[in-house]
């Protein structure tokens, strides 16, 4: 029986560029990701703390981490994970 990650919520520190819309669109371009929601928590001179909610069907966290790093963002913590059994 397969298990697939359906949803993850991440606490992320990112640079102010690229802007949130660009960042969210890039995340959404990853395979198996159906939707991305980003909420701004705190803003600094160079950085933004954001809560990133990713929904999909078989989200690969390593791909997400890699893409975030390529866009000047680091994951502080994984705050929530939803995994579903696929019969």
């Amino acid at each position: 029986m397969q298990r697939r990650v359906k949803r993850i919520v991440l606490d992320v520190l990112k640079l102010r560029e690229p802007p949130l819309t660009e960042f969210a669109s890039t995340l959404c371009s990853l395979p198996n990701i159906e939707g991305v929601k980003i909420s701004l928590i705190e803003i600094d001179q160079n950085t933004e703390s954001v809560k990133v909610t990713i929904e999909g069907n078989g989200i690969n966290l390593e791909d997400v981490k890699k893409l975030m790093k390529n866009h000047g963002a680091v994951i502080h913590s994984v705050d929530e994970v939803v995994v579903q059994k696929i019969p």
Partner: protein
Amino acid sequence: MESLSKIINRIKLYIEVTHIGDIARRYFVKNGMDGSMTVLGIILGSWVAKVEDPYVIVMAGFGACLAMGISGLFGAYITEKAERKRIIKDLEESILSDLDGSLQQNASEFVPTLTALVDGLSPSLTATISLIPFLISMVGLLSIWDSYVISTILTFATLFALGLYLGHVARERMWIYGLQMIAAGAVITLIVYALGGF
């Protein structure tokens, strides 16, 4: 190989991420003005000295704008590279992580080339506009004295256009900026004629 539209989108993203548009705009106008003013000085100096060979003016003009272009190319590249390295280090400290291979890093490597091209090509572009009448004169289609007049008018028109652009950037009355640029050219004209004992 990336398609042209992908390359253009990537360049747009790099410009957005690094905010280089403002800096490139300044480089363009400042060095464009430098190019026009330098060639104006050469043209007026040659006019006062009654130089009758357009080849002399063309070579002096292109020589000067080539020197400005090369100086701008290397100067802007090295300066911008140093600035970008500093910015990347500041950003790395902000997120306590390295940015190797990131969008920011790639953009910072591209940006010095873009600014160098703008800085290097803008004086060449404006200087070439001023030298066109002398190029026509070289092939015998225009007298040298007509070339002096047309070239001076073209140079002032270029300065005025740069001023208009600045006025557009400032979102103020464009013609005021245009007149200010013309005033700068007029100062050079007066000084050169005074030196020539006109």
